[in-house]
């Protein structure tokens, strides 16, 4: 991927933005806590890490995917009191699965614009409320006239995308399964993980067929959970930490809901979002300049797809890099060192904890057992969602 160099007033901001704390709850299929209680628990942890308390928070951004999961209209408002939002400027954002990185992007606007010096970003998802299955809620994202009468579900359409991706680049399922093997093993070191395990490529290839080529172990599980981040202006960052992580670029892009009218083998909306974020971060050669990445991995092939969208691999090259160990935690370009959605879990918006949250922990050298082997300065995280149409990207660096 080539990214043009930008100078001058483009992307002008009032002040730089640092992340100084993060927190997340355990991810599980069914948690007893309410969405408010989960939000509170994640925020509490982030505040402790940042050595702050709620009175230091000026504004709050809540990220949560569609209301249908929780069965609550105006879910943002419902979650407010557990989100530290009472009597403060508070807003909820969502772009489906892309929310996990879109919410911190919205937090970035708050601080970069100078409107707030301290902004709390919290993401919550409780998929277990929705019955008979969360897939029943996804059904209503399709066009009611053209798609829905055919009874599609998300697994089927991702199977179509995976099939197209495999066909265009002649990729074997074995090579895709390696992502699931890697991420579920990485998750063994994550205290919040739902599906951490040592598995083999054969386990993936022999797991239950859902909609071929997609099998059970190619997919992340539905989960409940919450995550939080604290984003601050430089003068606050100096007061609370010696190791702030700076947000150096943000980007987002959406493609049409007419998802059948584009070639699914490449997520061009992710590429557009990435280019925007790289331009802002003055990154011209992402493969060389990015040290660690958290690409969105709700399916194993999606990590590869997104590495290519993010310019971390050429088209069709991501499976090769994975096979060669480049994306392993001790590789040259570690991807999903957190364990990702495949290993830690997929509570839609709350995956912020394993994407933006993990990138912050990696760059702050706070990832503990999950810390990648190489020295890291700059990283990228990304989320993806809606009807295979949104890419959200954030670049961070521990150097300002």
């Amino acid at each position: 991927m080539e990214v043009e160099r930008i100078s001058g007033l483009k992307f002008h901001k009032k002040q730089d933005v640092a992340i100084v704390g993060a927190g997340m709850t355990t991810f599980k299929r069914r948690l007893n806590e309410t969405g408010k209680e989960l939000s509170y628990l994640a925020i509490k942890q982030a505040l402790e890490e940042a050595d702050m308390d709620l009175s230091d928070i000026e504004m709050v951004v809540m990220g949560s995917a569609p209301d249908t999961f929780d069965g609550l209209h105006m879910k943002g408002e419902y979650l407010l009191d557990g989100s530290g939002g009472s009597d403060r400027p508070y807003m909820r954002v969502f772009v489906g699965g892309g929310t996990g990185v879109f919410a911190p992007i919205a937090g970035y606007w708050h601080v970069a614009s100078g409107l707030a010096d301290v902004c709390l970003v919290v993401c919550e998802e409780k998929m277990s409320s929705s019955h008979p299955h969360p897939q029943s809620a996804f059904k209503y994202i399709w066009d009611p006239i053209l798609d829905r009468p055919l009874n599609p579900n998300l697994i089927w359409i991702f199977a179509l995308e995976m099939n197209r991706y495999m066909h265009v680049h002649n990729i074997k399922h074995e090579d895709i399964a390696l992502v699931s093997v890697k991420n579920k093993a990485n998750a063994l070191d994550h205290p919040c993980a739902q599906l951490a395990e040592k598995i083999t490529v054969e386990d993936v290839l022999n797991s239950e067929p859902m909609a071929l080529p997609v099998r059970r172990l190619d997919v992340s599980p539905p989960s409940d959970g919450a995550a939080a981040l604290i984003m601050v202006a430089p003068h606050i960052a100096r007061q609370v930490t010696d190791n702030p992580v700076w947000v150096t670029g943000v980007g987002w892009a959406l493609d049409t809901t007419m998802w059948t009218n584009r070639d699914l083998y490449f997520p061009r909306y992710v590429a557009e979002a990435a280019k925007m974020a790289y331009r802002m971060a003055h990154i011209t050669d992402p493969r060389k300049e990015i040290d660690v990445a958290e690409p969105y991995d709700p399916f194993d092939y999606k990590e590869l797809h997104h590495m290519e969208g993010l310019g971390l691999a050429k088209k069709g090259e991501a499976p090769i890099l994975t096979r060669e160990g480049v994306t392993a935690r001790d590789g040259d370009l570690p991807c999903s060192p957190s364990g990702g959605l495949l290993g830690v879990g997929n509570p839609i918006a709350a995956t912020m904890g394993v994407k933006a949250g993990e990138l912050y922990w990696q760059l702050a050298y706070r990832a503990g057992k999950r810390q990648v082997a190489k020295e890291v300065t700059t990283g990228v995280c990304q989320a993806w969602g809606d009807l295979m149409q949104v890419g959200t990207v954030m670049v961070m660096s521990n150097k300002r």
Partner: protein
Amino acid sequence: MFNEKIVNPAELRHWEGKIELYWIYTSGVAGDKFFKALKDEEKFIAAKCKKCGKVYFPPRMYCEFDFSETEYVEVSGEGSVRAFTVARLDKDEKLMEKPEIYAIIDMDGTDGCMVHLLGEVEPEDVYIGMRVKPVLKEKGEREGKITDILYFKPS
């Protein structure tokens, strides 16, 4: 023609849709404590902030204003009417068989109120500040729901 009046939408090609979903809501950590005590022991549980002392009813595991932890405290369940209305039309604007009295009840010993029905009282006899106490379902009929409280009556 944009200004053509559609008199019968069924004459146009159309599809009908319905969202086929139901939800199972969890009452959460503090909610569990509250409903179990109500169902099994006819007790009313509130939660007091360990930092600012604010007492939440129904209880919460956190204080919304300073994010400190709370501790559970028992309250009487009695209170006084802070505001009330007498509902005569239902949500579909149909005349209700019997008017219902909805009240905001200021719960004794807490900084919170709850909304519930008033019973064993005529609408014209209700006044703001009226003392009320809860009437619960029989023990065997209680399910751990807010409707285990049938209504509040004058005390």
